[in-house]
Every structure is written in structure tokens, then in C-alpha cells.
């Protein structure tokens, strides 16, 4: 992974920079000891590491503005960081950059049940937003797998999804407003407790911009009342193709489940060995969850089962209690851990049109044989968001590179069949150089033009999202 060479002028001014930081932040908010900055050398994409020049942990929007103003003046790159759970290297620093972590800003600022929103500081974790409103029966819908740990700041930066977004949408569909600090220290309010923008939808552009346009310190999030209940049905098939058709038929029939999860045989076997959820040993497995009152759930699950039966399932297990639901979800929820037990793995995130599911799974199987690396598939089938898990051995020389090459081929395949490189994890550094497979040069240029407007000096998370060669002229011109 190539990163821009650290700017020697910035490295040379480290002492001066730290002294200036000390004027605007309390001592415990500045981390510059080389031993301590190692905690910030990577995110959840641990293959790439680089300790930053320093890390700062401001406690308020005003402190964030002070830090950005200083960095802007001194030309120091800034890498914003939520909880550091990015699988795409979105918070990977460079040696001449400062990590700006929002972890200390984790307050709930306002809860409003009548108007159905909550305003939080963005260092707050995803799950704790729901925790703050659930005693009144409400929840925050986007539910990335890392929801126990991941921060709202990162959710906004990556426009995170989750298993339940088939019904409730991803972050951008649940984000009503933000307080954002621009690189020059300007504080801007976008959106709020009302719906939709009066002018251009800048909030829509900021969400998913991977921390390259500004540092989001506060967010207004839509909250919903919890449904009365939810229950899944587990359906096993003897071919991926049939499972794919079943997904399509369920959707066409007018049932809108909250989640349709898909696992293939390698993944089913791994999770069975790991969690013993009692899954059938079959080619493909669907978990379809619906919501409502007990009767409503029965009606919907009945319709889904009826459709599934026309596809000759090898197993059809409808949950009738909370306990049975938990057992059905157990395997799915431990899938990543189960695969991790077998070996190191790389988790991909491409999205494909649902109709291409059987073809893409077949091609992945063929490529797995070609590359000699195992792969398990577990993903959100309702919206075509795939998560192939490629197994490799990090201690075996050359395996990581082989795994990355395999991953790149899968993502190119996703684009080829009409899909995209990433459905919910973001581009980060991981998929940066594949962007030219999805976008023509001028399509990338207009995206980079947006960054030119928000961050003309290209100091915010500069080496991410765009192929390094594509962003280089702009980064150099800005220096």
C-alpha cells in the first residue's frame, strides 16, 4: 500500500506544532509520545500501520475548530477518527499527520420523542444511541455489525449500513443534520430537526465523504419507535441459484422483510463448528426477518414460507419464540468470528444487482480455486451487499498479496455486473486504487472538485478514496 511521502518540513516542525497544540488543548488531550501514538497507527484494517505525528482528543466543537485552524495554518494533514473500527483503512494516518479523535465527545445533547430525533456528539457509539432512547421504546435504525464499538462520526463518514437497512435505510437516510467543522476552522450547521434541504443537499454529500470534507462533531439522528416484535425464518437450499431466486420472489411478492441474510456452505460449516446453532448442512441458507405484532409476523412469515416452499427448500424453520429467534441468529452473528477461527480473513463489501447473485457466487467459487484461497460468503441478500470473506495466512509470505489480488478481482466482478466496490464499508485506502474501475477520470474529477471546495488545501484525510495518482496533482498543488 503506497502512501504519500511524509512532508519533511512538517516533520521538522513537530516540536513547534506540539507547542502550539499545547496552547489550545489541555495536556491530557494531546498524545505525542511515540509509544502512545502507536495506539492510533491503524484502524480495523490492521494490515497497514503508521504512527501519526500526534493524536489529539478534543472535548468540544470549539476545540476541534481550534485544532483545525492551527493545522490549516501550519499545513499539517488531519486524519479524523471515530472509534477506529474502519475495515477500509479510513483512519490510517501518515507520519506527518495528526489523528483527530472525537472519542471524548460522546454526550447525548437532546432527545425529542415528539419530533422523533436525538442529537448527539459524534464520538458516541452507535449502539449507545439506541441505549439512550430505548426506555421510551425508540431505536436508531442503522446497525453496522460493529455497532457496539463504532462511533456515529465514523458511521457518518462511511455512510454505514447494517443488516436491517433493507427496511430502514443506511446512515444517510437516517441523518437529519450535522455540526461540522471545516478545515479552516469554520463551524457549519447542515440540516437539523426538519426534513430535507432548502438549497443544495450538502448534508447528503458530507455523509459518506470519509472525513475528507470536514470533521462532524454533532449529529441529529432520526429515531423510530420499535416495532412490537420481530421474528425470523431460516430457509436452507441445495443451490445458491435457487436461494437467489427465492430472495427475488420474496421481494416481488410485496413482503418487505427488515433483513434477508444469506450464507453459503463454507460459511455455514464454519459457523456450525464454531457456534453450533443447528444449521442444516446445505449449499445456501437464508435468514429472513419480519416485524410487527405477533399476528402480523405470522402472516408475513406464512407468505415467505409459502414462497420458499415453491423452491423446494431442504430446511424451513420458522421461529415461534424469542429463544428460537436467538438460535437462528446465533450462527449468522458469529459468522465472522467463526471464519476468523479458521484463519486470517479479509472481508469484502461489494454490492451487486440481486439478479446477479447466482452468477457472482459461481465466479467467486471458480476464482477461489484459481487463487488457492478459501472463501466464505455471508451477506445482506435483500440489497445485494456481499461480504465475501477470503481466508489467508498472514504469517505465510505472499499470502496477503494473493488475498488482495483475489479481493480486487471479486470487486471488479461486482462492478462488471452492474454493482459497486463498496456497499457500506467505504473506500478508505483499501479500495482507493480500484476506483478507476468504477468511475471514469472525469467522474472522479468532479468528486475531487467537491473536496477542492470544502478543503482547498487537501489536508483532511488526503490520501484516501481517490487513486493516489488521480489526487496527486491536487495534493501537490495545494502544498
Amino acid at each position, binding site marked *: 500500500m503506497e502512501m504519500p511521502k511524509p512532508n519533511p518540513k512538517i516533520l521538522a516542525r513537530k516540536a513547534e506544532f506540539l507547542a502550539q497544540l499545547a496552547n489550545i488543548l489541555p495536556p491530557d488531550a494531546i498524545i505525542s509520545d511515540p509509544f502512545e501514538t502507536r495506539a492510533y497507527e491503524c484502524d480495523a484494517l490492521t494490515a497497514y500501520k503508521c504512527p501519526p505525528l500526534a493524536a489529539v482528543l478534543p472535548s468540544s466543537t470549539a476545540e476541534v475548530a481550534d485544532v483545525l485552524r492551527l493545522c490549516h495554518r501550519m499545513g499539517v494533514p488531519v486524519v479524523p477518527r471515530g472509534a477506529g473500527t474502519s475495515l477500509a483503512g479510513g483512519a490510517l494516518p501518515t507520519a506527518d499527520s495528526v489523528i483527530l479523535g472525537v472519542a471524548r465527545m460522546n454526550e447525548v445533547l437532546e432527545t425529542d420523542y415528539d419530533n422523533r430525533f436525538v442529537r448527539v456528539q459524534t464520538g458516541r457509539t452507535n449502539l449507545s444511541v439506541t441505549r439512550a432512547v430505548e426506555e421510551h421504546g425508540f431505536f436508531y435504525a442503522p446497525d453496522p455489525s460493529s455497532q457496539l464499538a463504532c462511533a456515529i462520526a465514523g458511521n457518518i463518514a462511511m455512510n454505514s449500513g447494517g443488516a436491517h437497512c433493507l427496511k430502514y435505510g443506511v446512515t444517510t437516510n437516517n441523518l437529519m443534520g450535522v455540526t461540522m467543522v471545516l478545515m479552516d476552522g469554520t463551524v457549519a450547521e447542515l440540516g437539523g430537526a426538519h426534513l430535507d434541504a432548502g438549497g443544495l443537499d450538502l448534508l447528503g454529500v458530507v455523509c459518506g465523504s470519509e472525513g475528507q470534507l470536514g470533521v462532524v462533531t454533532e449529529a441529529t439522528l432520526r429515531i423510530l419507535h420499535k416495532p412490537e416484535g420481530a421474528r425470523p425464518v431460516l430457509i436452507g437450499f441445495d443451490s445458491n441459484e435457487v436461494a437467489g431466486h427465492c430472495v427475488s420472489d420474496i*421481494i416481488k411478492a410485496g413482503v*418487505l422483510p427488515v433483513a434477508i441474510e444469506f450464507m453459503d456452505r463454507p460459511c455455514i460449516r464454519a459457523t456450525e463448528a464454531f457456534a453450533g446453532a443447528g444449521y442444516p448442512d446445505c449449499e445456501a441458507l437464508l435468514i429472513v426477518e419480519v416485524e410487527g405484532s405477533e399476528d402480523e409476523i405470522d402472516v408475513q412469515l406464512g407468505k415467505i414460507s409459502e414462497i420458499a416452499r415453491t423452491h423446494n427448500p431442504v430446511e424451513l424453520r420458522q421461529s415461534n419464540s424469542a429463544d428460537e429467534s436467538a438460535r437462528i441468529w446465533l450462527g449468522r452473528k458469529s459468522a465472522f468470528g467463526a471464519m476468523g477461527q479458521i484463519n486470517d480473513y479479509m472481508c469484502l463489501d461489494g454490492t451487486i*444487482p440481486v439478479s446477479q447473485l447466482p452468477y457472482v457466487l459461481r465466479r467467486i467459487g471458480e476464482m477461489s480455486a484459481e487463487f488457492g484461497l478459501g472463501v466464505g460468503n455471508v451477506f445482506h441478500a435483500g440489497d445485494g451487499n456481499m461480504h465475501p470473506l477470503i481466508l489467508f495466512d498472514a504469517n505465510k509470505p505472499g499470502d496477503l498479496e494473493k488475498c488482495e489480488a483475489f479481493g480486487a478481482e471479486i470487486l471488479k466482478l461486482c462492478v462488471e455486473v*452492474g454493482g459497486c466496490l*463498496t456497499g457500506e464499508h467505504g473506500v478508505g485506502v483499501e479500495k482507493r486504487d480500484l476506483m478507476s474501475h*468504477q468511475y471514469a477520470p*472525469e467522474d472522479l474529477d468532479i468528486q475531487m472538485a467537491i473536496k477542492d471546495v470544502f478543503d482547498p488545501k487537501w489536508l483532511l484525510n488526503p490520501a484516501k478514496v481517490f487513486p493516489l495518482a488521480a489526487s496527486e496533482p491536487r495534493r501537490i498543488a495545494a502544498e
Partner: protein
Amino acid sequence: MSGAANFRKDAVLRPESETDLAEAIASANSPLRIEGGGTRPVGRCAGKLLTTSGIAGITLYEPGALTMVAKAGTPLAEIAAALDAENQQLAFEPMDHRPLLGTDGTPTIGGVFAANVSGPRRIQCGAARDFLLGVRFVDGQGRILSNGGRVMKNVTGYDLVKLMAGNRGTLGVLSEVSFKVLPQPEATATVMLEGLDLRDAVKAMSAALGSPFDVAGAAHVQNKTVLRVEGFVASVTYRAQALSEKLGKFGAAKTLTNAEENTSLWQSVRDVTALGTYPAVWRLSLKPGDTESLFLKLRRLHDGFLGKTILDWGGGLVWLAADREMLMDMSMQAGPNDHCEPDMGVRVGHMNLQELAQDLGGHATLIKAPEEVWPHVNAFQPEPPPLAALSDGIRQKFDPRGVLNRGLMGGM
């Protein structure tokens, strides 16, 4: 005839392909006025008319994947018919502006997305912008660009799809859109409360929307507070009943289950047909709870607003209308002037409503006004300085020559 007709002087540009569209824009040496079907002229700008109505046709429809791709000029009716054949629909329920604005012509799918037009179901399933998955468009330099795609989850690069939704042809002209569609519900019921004042109506709607019963429409029109539930028959019956009980403290609720009645009721809410006869109409987006404060302040501006108010989105969308008499009254507030009085009334009202909306953290748009008013007003809420600078910066990048709907949304 379109409301913008008096700008139609030169021959109309009507490209029939994306390439022709790019050429037309690249070779434009003066501002262009961009139009889809011309049924929603909100705000005005000068320039030679360019219509996308010639770039039409459904490119791809996959009912099992809930996605459709269509060229921007495709008539909305053609889209609706194709979806209907598969029991699907545009769930965000775009408003038809023709009854309100008195325009004719054929609404296009490009126009719907370019103006981010959403109806009553917006509070449950999202706005047009939430359903737009991908765009192809031509920017002010004549470059053919694309962003997003045709899959439901896509975080690959910046989300310019959201930016293009609601850009009203000021950043680029849409040539093709891909979007998510949803199944039509099997059944619909409306729980109706009568005689609530605006304040209680908002409270009742908040209670309904804060319930687990998945309310897919919450509006208050002409003394009736209406709450919609949709889905499978048994489920709708159950939720309508549960909702009526929950709202018991607001009075005895009636439930409408007849399909045609429901369709026509929600169509009239969507299209704001009740305000079609008024010369001036505004649309405000606010936090629903702020409507109470709005109504108090409105009374000072003109108490005539209150009787005609339509609330949608649980009170978060406020439609205000003024009749001729109210406009005359408001024009007095401007002091002696030599303008035609109702026109001055619109300008006074507009200024006041935008101030109110700004104070409340929302926004107000002038949707309908006598033609003479437009040159004097910005229909759209001015943005606060940091946002205005960003929006202007983006316009400079997308349309450095200022040829696309110049000045329509303010700026430049």
C-alpha cells in the same frame, strides 16, 4: 401552457440523446433555462429553454431487485404504468404540481428527482433523494458524468446522487436516473380525527408517528387529521384499530377502508389541491413541534393564513396560502409603493415567512406567485454564510460559466 411561458422567446432546445444534450450545453454561449416537463416552475431564471423531454424511455426494470433505470425525460405516467403492472410504485409519492400551479404538460422522472419532490409517505420511507440510486448528467461544461449506480447500497466515492437530487438543474442536467421502487401495499386504511385545531393536530400526529404502528402518512387538511396505515389486509385492520385506541384522547376516530376513497384522499393531500385557487402559496419545512410557535407568529403577520393551512409530514411540512385580500393587507406593511399591491403583498409575506423559517431553523419556499413577483424574489431560503459559500463554490465547479438555471436557487 407552462407558467414560465413568457420566457419562451427563442427556439427551444430539445436534445434527443445524452450526447446531443452535452453538445447543446457545451456550445451554449448564454444562459439556459432547464426544464423537464415544465409542470413545476418554482422560481424563475432567464435563458434559452432546454427541455429534457426528448431524452426518454425506461432503460431497465428489475422488479425482483426493486430497481428501475430510466432516461430523465421519461413521462412519470409511463413509469407509473410500468410499475403498476408489477404491483410496484414510487413509494416517495411525488406530488403532481399541476393542480396547485395550474400548469399543464407532462411531468418527467428527471424533473421529480431534480426537484426532490416527495409526498406524504416521505415521513415513513424517505424522500425522492433517498430513493435515487444513480445519476447520469451533463454539467455546465458539457461533460457527461455519472455517480452512484443501480444497487441499493453504494458508498463508493462521494454521494453526488444526493447533491443532484434537488439541484434543480443548477449543477447539471440529468440525463438518466436509477432508483429504488417498492411494492404497492395490499391494503390502505386512514384513521381520521375531526375538528382538532392545528396545535392538537400536530400532537395527535406526533403520537401516531411515535407509535409502533408504522404510520405511512400524517396530515391535517381542512379540519381533518388523517393518519394512514398500509400493508397486508389483516395487518392494516389491526393497526388502524390500535391507532384509533391510542388516539382516543383526541376524540372518536373514524376509519376509512375504501380503496378509492383512500387513493383520492391521499392524492389530494399529496397535490395540495385544496390550495389550488390561491394566488400565492408557500411550503415550509420545520421541526413539527415548532409549528406552534410558527402559528403564533403567523397570526401577527396575517391571521388569514391559519384557516387555510395544510400540514403534512406530521406537521413538519406546512403549506400556507394567501388570497388576494390577504395580499392587499400585507402589501400595506411595505408602506406606500407604486407596485401592484397583491404583488407587493407576496413579497412582504415571503420576506416574513423566510425570516420565520430561519428563526425556527427550517426553510420556506415560495411555490406559487403572480408572474410579476418572481424577478423580485428568491423562491428558495437563503443559506447562512458558510453554507452559501460552499454552495457557490460547488456551482463554480459544476457550472463555471453560469449557463445552467443561473440564479434560480440564489448565488452567483
